[in-house]
């Protein structure tokens, strides 16, 4: 009996080469698009660079949000708070302490992650929807805090020194920074999904009671997912402030940005690696096209498109390409 089953299991492990092949294809596709991303931008004008940087940013934010909402199953509607914390970390460190920009990026991420642990520990003991509402409140609270503190510049915000670069070179630099950030986020999500923690988070999404009875410390892994989500979002925020050169509370803790990456995640498909990327690209490019053709009613047209996607592809655009999730 034992021999037979180990033979089966061995066959199964060999059989997973089939899955490996599709992973190779995915890796090649990613590498290919990376190459395109590296070469094409040199020939783009600043307008398109800006649009593409925005796409990359929304994709990175949607991927980070996906860690909490898609993989772990906890909808955090105020994830932009981490983006804001990252942005303010860079702004304060650069303007007040002359810390080099590149150094402030990880610091912004780490500070956001610490903040996620501090707020997550009490909040994530609860199950279900309270968490979503609480995250909204936290974001509003942080916005008010930033407006009222002196060292964050209050409502006036913070200006950064204009970097000593030619404008197009600067746009290219930011574009590459954002590309690298997206690559780091996607790599993080892929590694996470294959890891022990990834199994725990997916199990929590699948059924939290069952997960606990299988030995998963659910509170710990929920907080971990929240912190990972915050780490990446915070780093994106750092790059964003460097790009804009200016930050104020309304822009750092901006709910409409939050809605954009939530929509990108939902449109693309939650829980998967490429879903949020597809969603971000589709949403940003659509909204750009629609905006240029239907100036007056572009939001209505965009809304209609989103309704259509939700109605006909409830698992997101990614379900067009994959037969996996039934």
């Amino acid at each position: 009996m034992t021999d037979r089953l180990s033979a089966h299991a061995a066959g199964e492990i060999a059989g997973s080469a089939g899955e490996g092949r599709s992973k190779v294809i995915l890796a090649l596709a990613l590498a290919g698009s990376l190459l395109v991303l590296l070469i094409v931008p040199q020939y783009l004008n600043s307008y398109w660079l800006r649009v593409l940087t925005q796409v990359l940013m929304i994709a990175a934010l949607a991927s980070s949000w996906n860690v909490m909402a898609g993989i772990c199953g906890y909808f955090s509607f105020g994830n932009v708070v981490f983006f804001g914390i990252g942005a303010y970390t860079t702004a304060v460190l650069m303007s007040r302490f002359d810390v080099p920009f590149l150094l402030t990026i990880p610091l912004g991420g780490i500070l956001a992650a610490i903040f996620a642990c501090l707020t997550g520990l009490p909040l994530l003991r609860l199950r279900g929807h309270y968490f979503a509402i609480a995250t909204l409140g936290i974001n509003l609270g942080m916005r008010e805090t930033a407006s009222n503190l002196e060292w964050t510049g209050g409502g006036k915000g913070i200006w950064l020194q204009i970097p000593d670069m030619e404008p197009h070179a600067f746009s290219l630099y930011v574009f590459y920074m954002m590309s690298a950030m997206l690559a780091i986020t996607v790599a993080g999500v892929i590694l996470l999904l294959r890891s022990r923690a990834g199994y725990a988070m997916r199990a929590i999404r699948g059924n939290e009671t069952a997960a606990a009875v299988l030995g998963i410390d659910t509170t710990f892994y929920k907080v971990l997912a929240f912190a990972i989500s915050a780490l990446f979002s915070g780093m994106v925020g750092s790059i964003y402030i460097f790009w804009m050169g200016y930050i104020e509370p309304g822009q750092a803790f901006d709910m409409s940005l939050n809605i954009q990456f939530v929509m990108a995640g939902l449109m693309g498909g939650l829980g998967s690696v490429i879903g949020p990327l597809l969603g971000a690209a589709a949403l940003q490019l659509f909204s750009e096209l629609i905006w240029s053709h239907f100036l007056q009613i572009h939001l209505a047209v965009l809304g209609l498109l989103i309704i259509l996607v939700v109605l006909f592809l409830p698992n997101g655009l990614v379900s067009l390409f994959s037969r996996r999730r039934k």
Partner: protein
Amino acid sequence: MSEPLLQLKDLSRHFGGVAAVEDVDVEFEKGTITGLIGPNGAGKTTLLQLISGVQMPNGGKIIFKGEDITRKKAHERARLGIGRAFQVVQPLTGMNVAENVTTAALFGRNGATRSVREARKFGLDILNRVGLFAKRKNYMSALTLADSKRLELARALATEPELVLLDEVMAGLNQSEVAMQMDLLRSINAAGLTMIVVEHVMKAIMAISDAILVLHHGRKIEFAPPNEVAKNPEVIKAYLGARYAEPV
């Protein structure tokens, strides 16, 4: 005599004014199968909730392997070696059959020592044992009731428990499926696993149990070998109806 694997000392759980479990005092010996029976609402599932840590008791103590685990959380108990299969199947949706058991093997009693790959292999071996290997890539929506009950059991086993709580793993199965499930339980028990089994299929439970615990209105009314329990008039009255208590 050796120390019992699990002791419940005056265990109680109230929901408002309703006592779901009241002063239950039992000892479960290592390696035995205990059948847990009683009418609907007798507190069987609540008792399993308390032992697995999904709910906390209002009073009393739970001692497992000599350690007081009354205040321990569900995941800590799972790691100590208490496994559970639910009455209403609780699949990890969004994960296929293989991933369900892999997760159990990753976080159960010896989970911390395994890599994801090792856990997967371990889980697949268990799927093979319960006859689910061919469906390892299925998602829940593609499983029959019998298969999802088997998965429930496979997942509990993948945590490598010393004590496994099985809540109606035979309900809704047909005759031949019940027979298969019973064989499976016997073979698992033969490997030394202690079991507490809630079941309404009386023929099955009387046949496989070493002892029967009867609950009624949350109280223990009998704890004895099956043949004695079957003759106890109080049990017959509570569980089978008063009519059957009268001598024919």
